[in-house]
């Protein structure tokens, strides 16, 4: 309640007048009565409200029916479920292990591919002119890089496939 130096201000006085069930009771409160005696605006408001209050209190409304509440509830819950965004699935530990193993072995994969490229170059250089041999090795490097990249990129998708069909995976093992 807003009280300024022990006295009600207009806002607090108006609030008490509005919330009083009986306006006679509002005046029983000495702080309201004191304020009303001094404030012409609040006094006029009380007087006006005192005249219309019995009429205003006759304006009754219906409670919502049970059916209406159920309908509202149903639609609100439907809306609530539509709001939900699917949560991001946590990283599967199995997939994490596969990714880790493949990343650890990546230098070895690169080394093997490099050795294969060098061997391929040596072989083609014996049979073909040097320029053509370099071209063939270049092609080999491009295709090998693509294969390794796609191989690694497919790991999460393979992991997702495995995660969504655990039953089939177990059946295959047994």
């Amino acid at each position, binding site marked *: 309640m807003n009280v300024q130096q022990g006295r009600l201000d207009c806002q607090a006085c108006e609030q008490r007048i509005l*919330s009083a069930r009986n306006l006679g009771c509002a005046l029983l409160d000495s702080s309201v009565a004191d304020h009303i005696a001094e404030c012409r605006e609040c006094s006029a*408001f009380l007087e006006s409200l005192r005249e219309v209050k019995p*009429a205003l209190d006759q304006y009754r409304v219906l409670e*919502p029916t049970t059916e*209406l*509440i159920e309908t*509202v509830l149903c639609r*609100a819950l439907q809306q*609530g479920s539509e709001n939900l965004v699917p949560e991001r699935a946590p990283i599967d530990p199995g997939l994490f292990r596969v990714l880790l193993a493949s990343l650890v072995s990546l230098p070895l994969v690169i080394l093997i591919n490099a050795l294969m490229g060098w061997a391929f170059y040596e072989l083609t250089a014996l049979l073909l002119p040097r320029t053509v041999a370099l071209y063939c090795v270049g092609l080999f490097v491009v295709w090998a890089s693509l294969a390794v990249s796609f191989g690694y990129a497919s790991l999460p998708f393979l992991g997702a496939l495995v995660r969504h069909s655990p039953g089939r995976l177990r059946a295959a093992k047994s």
Partner: protein
Amino acid sequence: MSSRQCSFTIRAMGPHTEPSDETLAVRAEQGDQEAISVLVRRHSPGLYGFIQRYQPDRDDADDLLQETWIRAVANLDRFDPKRRFSTWLFQIALNLCRDRARRDQVRSRFRRDVQEMQQEKTRVTVEEKVDARKVVRAIEALPPQQKEALLLRYYQGFSEGETSEIMGCPKGTVKSRLHQAVQALRSKLGPRGVEH
């Protein structure tokens, strides 16, 4: 701001074992369907009362109640838990009511059949029925902003600050609109309802 935060803390840690609206709203935003259910059951009666007084047509009120909740649930991520949930909810309802009223301007503004049904259901006397209809007409005839201030302040019990937040206007404006509304009703309804 500080009083709002204070009241929020009191509600959240008060003696009631039931979680506060704001806590439920946060849980609902995270997908807790039970929280949505509690909020709907807790606030629908008050919200429906406000909508009915704004839009006396029963079918419109039913639609608006549903639309309000759907919009509220759809926008829960925008709700700031430091604010009062009811204020935010009534803001949505008021915007929808305003939109509907704008659309319905061409339709008849005096749809009283529903009100008659209401009075019959609440088993009031013939005299009260006539008075209630007079009140409905008088409130309907108020300028929209005065009507909003009256409905939110008098019937829904929102504070001046909350009403200003819902209506999107300064506190002083809420006060003057409420006073104008009461004054207008006094001149329309006359001194018949004087309390003795």
